[in-house]
């Protein structure tokens, strides 16, 4: 019996095979998936915003921001026995659900989340082996820690396995 662990908005969770990590209805948020195929430990973060420096509070939840969620997730994965040197990543989400011209760039939060996640992964020297990002539709993603497979479900835009 494998367990399915739900990762909510602004949360991050790590798990070991045969568990499954799932996050539902990603829109402008980005799902960051990390996987160590040797220890079969996986991690999933549901990132909402690009930059923790813009937070008005100092005691924020690290799961919200691209630049803090990934570090926190790796720490959790280490507890399950993952080795950072083996970790690779897959990313999904960052859609722009509504198309509206606006004088500021808040409409493009999805795209900016994707850029921030990529910059952080590069900084940590973690390879991005697959991605399914941007577009204008929502995604539900599921990581199987047994195989490292990531399934992506959409409504009307097909399903894929990364």
């Amino acid at each position: 019996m494998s367990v399915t662990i739900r990762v909510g908005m602004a949360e991050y969770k790590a798990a070991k095979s045969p568990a499954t990590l799932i996050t539902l209805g990603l829109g402008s948020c980005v799902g960051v998936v990390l996987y160590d195929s040797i220890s079969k430990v996986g991690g999933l973060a549901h990132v909402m915003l690009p930059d923790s420096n813009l937070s008005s509070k100092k005691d924020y939840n690290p799961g919200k921001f691209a630049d803090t969620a990934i570090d926190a997730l790796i720490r959790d994965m280490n507890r399950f026995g993952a080795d950072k040197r083996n970790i690779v990543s897959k990313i999904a989400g960052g859609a722009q659900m509504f198309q509206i011209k606006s004088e500021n760039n808040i409409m493009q939060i999805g795209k900016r989340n994707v850029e921030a996640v990529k910059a952080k992964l590069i900084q940590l020297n973690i390879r991005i082996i697959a991605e399914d990002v941007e577009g204008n539709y929502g995604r539900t993603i599921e990581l199987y820690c047994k195989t490292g497979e990531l399934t992506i479900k959409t409504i009307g835009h097909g399903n894929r396995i990364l």
Partner: protein
Amino acid sequence: MYTDLEIDALKEIGNIGAGNAATALSLLLSKKIIIKVPKIRVLPFDEVSKSVGGPEKLVVGIFMRISGDIDGNILMVISEQDAYNLTEILLNIKRDKDWSFSNMEKSALMELGNIVGSSYIVALSELTKLSLKISVPSLAFDMAGAIISFPLSLYGYLGDTAFLIDTEFCEGLDGIKLHYLLIPDDESLKLLLNAIGVNTSERNNPGGNGRV
């Protein structure tokens, strides 16, 4: 987090906007429209999509951006079936397929959004004497979680909760329901309260700019 007076004031703002919008909606559909007392919701992010049926529930979202003296977002959420029923009323057609919307149907729903949104904002503007503009509507037919997360995610810079004024419009006989969410940007909430003479205390202004 908010005082009773502030909550009541915001409910009243919601009520006045919704009253005007309900009249417009009623004229548009030629149906009786009932509005419920607006709810002021301060919710953890993960619970927001639950309030409209769960993150994976298929819904129609109609989004408009408010700008001017205050900034904010309007999001209308309609369940899949209710949206189909609405297009039948708006276009006076009988639908045969129940799995997507034609461009004509999307356009009709956006126009409904436009009329409801504008009437709401006109009432709000008259009440507060603030100058408010509203963008053209944009429509998405997708998972509720994906649709609702965007206008709320900006609250992430302020804390772990989102703020929204939630008004439910119901069409009498067929029971069509429409969730109307007014989501002011952080600073705008204070301005909105000040505009109707409610002084906000310092703790309601977390001091962040929240802008991105």
